[in-house]
């Protein structure tokens, strides 16, 4: 299993969430909406490029459809990507099991 950084995991989950509508702007919007973090689109392209080189995502560029259509580069999870993301999520779950309430208590008590 290849190591996945936190931002890489966020992007892979977003690609999974967006299904056929996963492209640069939509991924950025999705992460910002769900996490409340401000994300640079450049960081998304860099990470997607790296994930693509590692074979964890696949991309396809679609030419504009119709008069108002725009070109898009769509991304999808590869089986390796899905496997690595699942492993990473399982690891986090295994480590965090039963600790959320403890984290809440610690965070609230300062």
């Amino acid at each position, binding site marked *: 299993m290849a190591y996945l950084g936190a931002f890489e995991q966020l992007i892979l989950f977003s690609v999974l969430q*967006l299904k056929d*509508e996963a*492209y*640069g*702007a*939509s991924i*950025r*919007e*999705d992460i910002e909406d769900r996490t409340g973090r401000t994300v*640079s*689109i*450049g*960081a*998304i*392209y*860099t990470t997607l*490029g*790296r994930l693509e*080189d590692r074979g964890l995502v696949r991309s396809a*560029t679609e030419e504009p459809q119709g008069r*108002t259509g*725009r*070109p*898009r*580069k769509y991304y999808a999870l590869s089986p390796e990507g899905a496997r690595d993301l699942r492993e990473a999520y399982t690891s986090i779950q295994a480590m965090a099991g039963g600790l959320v309430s403890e984290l809440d208590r610690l965070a609230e008590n300062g």
Partner: protein
Amino acid sequence: MTPDRREGGCPPRLLRLLVRLLIRGRDASYILSDLDASFARDIERGQKRGRAVRRYAWNALASAWAVWTTALRRIVTHGIGLDTRLGLRLLVKQPLITTVAVLALGLGIPASLFLLHGMDVLYSDLPVPDGDRVVGIRHYDVELQNPSLSSVHDLERWSDLTSLESIGAVRPYSVNLNAEESGASPARAAEITASSFDILRARPLLGRLLDPSDERDGAPDVLLVGEELWGARFARDPDIVGQSVRIGRTPFTVVGVMPADFRFPSSTDVWLPFRARAVDLPVGAGPRAFVFGRLADGVSIEDAKVELTGLTERRASDDSDQFERLVGEVVGMATLLLNEEAEPFWSRPELVIVQALIFGLLLVVCGNVGTLILARTAARSNEITIRTALGASRARILTQLFIEALVLAVVATGLGLLLANTFASWLMRLLAPYDFLPYWADLTLTPRVVGIALGLAALSAAVAGILPALSPTRRAIQANLQRTGVRSGGTRFGIGSSVLIVSQIVLSVGVLALGATGVRTAFAYQGDDLGFDPDRYVYATLTVPELDPMEVQDASDSLAWQTHLEEIQRALLTRLSEEQAVVGVAMGGHVPGLSSPNGDVILETPPAGFAPVEWDVATLRVDVSFFAGLGRPILAGRDFNAGDVEGPTGTPHAAVIVNESFVRHHFGGRNAVGQRFRYETGRTASGARDEEEWYEIVGVVGSFGTNPENSARDAAIYHPLAPGEINPVRFTVEVAGDPEAFVTRLRQIAASVDPVATVSAGLLAATIRTQSLMFRSTFLLLLALAGATFLLAATGLYALMSFTISQRTREIGIRSALGASTADIVSTVARRAALQVGVGLALGVAWGWVLLDNSRNDVEVGNIPLTLALTAAIAGSACVAACAHPTLRGLRIQPTEALRES
């Protein structure tokens, strides 16, 4: 979340333009689309337009950065590996290009770094711990423009410098070690201060170092010996410490042995205490020494310079006569010991010019390799076009071509460096017995020079790989695709390649002619041309130590030393002549067979109807019994006699003897006895001669090995020499029997005459052979260089012709179909090459003529027109051969085949 919902906003056009400028190709369109969508969303969510624009700009830059870094990473991780493999495959697939390029770059790149590496080696830090902290201190004489060696007074004055943790001095000279037992054989010695060992962080291998108490007057005479000498003369005797050895006549006690890597200051074998005291001497007088020190902790060389300058200026105001023209200098140890100027390499205009010329030549070599690669690139234009059509960017194609050229250049440079390192090791072994190089100079390659060579390899790959590819990759894909169908890439050889080929033919014809002439001259010498058999001779150089300035009380001391010098020289001459094995012995300033032309003369009455040849002549100084001693008959006039050297020591003696060759070249073989001449201004070579003085020829001898490099240019003038006039003086001894055995005997005789005087002796034949080998090597190297240049020119022609044929296949086919004759077709395809060869040969012959005409003093040029005609014929034939194969291929093109391909 549909895209349409967010497409209401409109970002500034300027920013969109910026994105198109920063991101080229298809990436730009989808990134712009994403940026626009993000901008629209920001506006829709109520963000102020200014903030949304700033965010757009930031995202645009971040996206461009992401695209570039991703592309670069992909090239590095995927492309380079693939391109390298392709480059390696091309090396094997195209052996001709590989061989020529590897030869050209493999020789060119290391050769271009020769000067730089040489300077690096010579001026490197001493091989001692923290060698860069050890610095030399000296005066520079601004009037004489020379570094001035320091006196003992300077050493004492500079001891006050606080920039230095301590200061030391060393005075190298030659001594005879145990001469009375084993014969005179010089050893390199040095008087050295005890502080020097601490400065150099030196430790003894056995025993102890010298200490300050050894320097006191009346202290026991002690010395240190080097490990090499300990092995050679004392068979590594473990009980050497405490033993007595004799320097000259004085016994010294060995107190320690220094390790083999300690040779300071100049391949030294013996170290003695430095006992000179300034108090005994007038200011500025006394033995000269190298003064040096170690920079104190935290002090830079600049700080030391400032302190020394202040001290020197204060001194100049106290004693202006002595010091006003002297400037204090803090220099590297190599600069100090080599007595060189302190300026760094890059501030010496002459060296920079030479280095720039060398790099210029390397650029020519790269241009040649570029021509070859252009032909290869042109042949692959279809591949390039198709790769472009499949989505490869121009940068990607250029990267591929660069990496292919880089593989070639790196392989060539690697092989060249390997060869250079082997050559350097061989040269060091060859030169080791002569102490030709400073002991700290290690000629083998340094990481710095390897790094620069690899940098040059990358630069060469850029020049040879990218430049020729810029044009073929610039064309529109569509146009190239159309041409692909008719086998025409549209690439052309420009005027640049023509100039390159012509200039190489010119260069190679001239240098080939000179190289061949030089090699012929150098190899013509077989030993017997010298007029004597050098295998029967031994030579020896006798050096009597100069008078110690501390011992000079008045003029009578100098006179006594002069008498002593004369007596020793006379005594050795007499003793040698009395030896049973000696057939003949002579004394002089030179040894037959080991001199070269160095002067030119003006005749008082030039012979009518004969134009003297303006060649340099050898000017030599010989004892009055020189010719008799060596059994050389006087052919005309008389031999020297005692009257010829009468007069005060050092004044020129008017009588001279010349050799047959001089008479032939300056008098057309007529009687020269009684004729007078003087030397050309500025061309006098050896001492005791005045350029205004007229000299009279009193005799003529046979030619006698005055110019072993060129036996046809051995005109010589012999000036008489009285014993004691020069020091050192050389003895030539003709021996019956084994000359090698006599060398040992000669050392014993010299030591019995004076154990203090040093003698270096050797076999004349071996030394002449070494000199001859160096001379031959120079011309062989020149010939090899000319050959390599010519090979490049011929290969360039071959590439040009091959390329022309492949470009014009269809045209040739049509011409054949229309009934064109063989001559027509040859004329079509070979016209340009023929023009290049013709112009190249014509200019090459002209340049070769100038070159040979100006080399008359160095080589036997012979019949210049014939030499040049032969060279041009050989070069022309090779050019025709280079063009023949592609032309024949053109002639074999069938009309049907060519038309079917179109």
